[in-house]
């Protein structure tokens, strides 16, 4: 504090007046995005190794361990198929709710899954009834479902998960392990060939990609 009363106040006011004209430091957020450090931990994402291949093997261990089942698996699985299994992000909330409900032991309405391709659930229910809704007979149930539909629709897997009480991740893991179980309708390969014909440029790219990652695309 100085000897002249009020000098400190005047100094402070001079400082604020100087700052009044100085350039501002605010980041105008929606227009200017803040810097995100490379190690930023705010968001779940898959890492790439030094060859540019995704490190995730789609083993589903993390999804199985996640207590609120918020982890989503997307990408190329061990059979070379691309999947996003949980659907659109807008439905995460519903899924969390459903997950909590399911683990509480109460029956869960599956209306939330209407956005998957709608199928007639009668055959699945029949298969489940046959096996007494027992999750221990999961392979048999899945085989029965595949026999009924020709492939394993996601909605059917959901149904099995609801009815047997087994985690969807577990069922998915089982289904991906056995080579004779399919997730695509039998016509899928034909369609892919069609697509390759329609866009010839893609075929070369897919071949190159296939060669690069060890022939696992098709």
């Amino acid at each position, binding site marked *: 504090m100085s000897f002249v009363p009020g000098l400190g106040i005047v100094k402070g006011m001079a400082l604020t*007046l100087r700052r009044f004209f100085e350039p501002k430091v605010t980041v105008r957020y929606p227009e200017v995005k803040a810097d995100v450090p490379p190690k930023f931990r705010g968001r779940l994402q898959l890492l790439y190794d030094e060859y540019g291949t995704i490190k995730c093997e789609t083993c589903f261990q993390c999804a199985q361990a996640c207590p609120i089942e918020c982890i989503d698996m997307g990408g190329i699985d061990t059979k070379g198929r691309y999947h996003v299994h949980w659907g659109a992000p807008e439905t995460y909330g519903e899924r969390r709710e459903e997950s909590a409900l399911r683990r509480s032991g109460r029956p869960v309405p599956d209306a939330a899954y209407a956005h998957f391709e709608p199928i007639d659930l009668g055959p699945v229910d029949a298969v489940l009834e046959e096996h007494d809704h027992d999750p221990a007979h999961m392979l048999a149930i899945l085989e029965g479902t595949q026999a009924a539909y020709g492939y394993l629709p996601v909605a059917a897997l959901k149904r099995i998960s609801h009815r047997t009480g087994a985690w969807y991740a577990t069922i998915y893991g089982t289904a991906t392990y056995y080579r004779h179980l399919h997730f695509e309708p039998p016509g899928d390969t034909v369609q892919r060939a069609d697509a390759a014909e329609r866009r010839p440029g893609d075929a070369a790219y897919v071949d190159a990609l296939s060669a690069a990652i060890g022939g696992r695309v098709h």
Partner: protein
Amino acid sequence: MTVVARTWNRLTLPGKVVFTVVPLLVVLAVALVVALALFGEAVLEILGANLPIVRFAVAATAILLMTIPTAFLIIYMEMKGIALMNLRIGPDRVGPFGSLLSVVHGLKVLMKEDFTPTGADPTVFTLAPVVVYLSAVMALLVIPFGPGLFGVDMNIALLYFFAVGGLTVVGLLMGGWASFNKYSLLGGLRSAAQIISYEIPLTLSVVGVLILAGTMSLNQLVQNQAGWFTDWYIWQQPLGALIFFIAATAEANRTPFDLTEADSEIVAGFATEYSGMRFGFFFFAEYVNVFIVSALMVTLFFGGWNAPFPFPATSLELDPASLGIGLLLLIAIVPVVATLVFAAPFWLLRPAWPAWYGLVIGFVLFNLVAVAAVVGWAYVSFDWVAGLVWFLVKTYFFVFVFVWMRGTLPRVRIDQLMNFAWKWLMELAFINIFITAGAILVIDALSSGS
């Protein structure tokens, strides 16, 4: 009927007041217009005979309408000014440079739920903001905005001003007491102590000016200061002006004397329990008070609406009527031509831009020039425009000083506040009076002796 009754019941109390008064005013206005049209001469005669009353009614309405934009402007100044001092950008989304944000705030306040806390006294609780706001508006009535631009020219205007300005404390105390909240109570009591204490140095500080001027009429005071800026009272009363400024800061509850609503101590003081438009009245009243205090500062010490230097007496002898039909042509052609002229350089220098860019820029430039020309013409031709411009410039400078202090200073403590008022400001004000009176005596003695 039931629909009307239900709607009526759903209105809050201010809503009920507004919905009763507005149709009444509309009916009155329509009646006046109809009367003027039917019996023009007679009505004008009656109005002319009662000129003071008509003048008062018009001034009161105008001032009431003026307070809201004033408050909006000062709120915007505060938000933007403090933000810039903080190295922030501040409001920049609504309107140009965010200038409409305070308007949006006002709308928000209107739409918010307006509740009364359980246990509060509803009548007093509702009346408190009205009292605060009214005292601010009533004080504005005597302020001379320009030559001839004032509500009432009272010969005791200054006294009236202090009396009405002191009414604020009643409203704050009412709000603090009726809110049924300890923070509000403390805030109300703080405001009572603070404002009453600072009334004294505030009033004493202007006594020096009164001795010099020999009048309490604010108009007369301003006219006394006409001429060069050296004729302003600030040069004869620097100490008085300083005391007035400090005391006025406390009177307007501004930083560093904003103890009544010290947000970090007693949450929001008397306004803790207020919401919606009732809070809005408190809020607007605070900023109107800032304006009033700055205006009085300007009026008393900085020459009011006088320009700092006597403007050379020029008069533009414009008689638009003499052009006859040419005037119409001028009005039709000048904007188009001027827009094209202003747009031309952009078309030449920036051929890459779409043509309408230049057109828009040219139109905007033309408008700026036209407005500047009109204002300049008005400034030269009309006394009151010149006076109003100077008055507003000076007043908003002091408003900016208030904002600036708010951006810089921390808050004082209640005991320091009271000590400062009673132990320093009051004594200084007395000394100021004695010095002024003594100087006048000496000068009189010298001038009569010689």
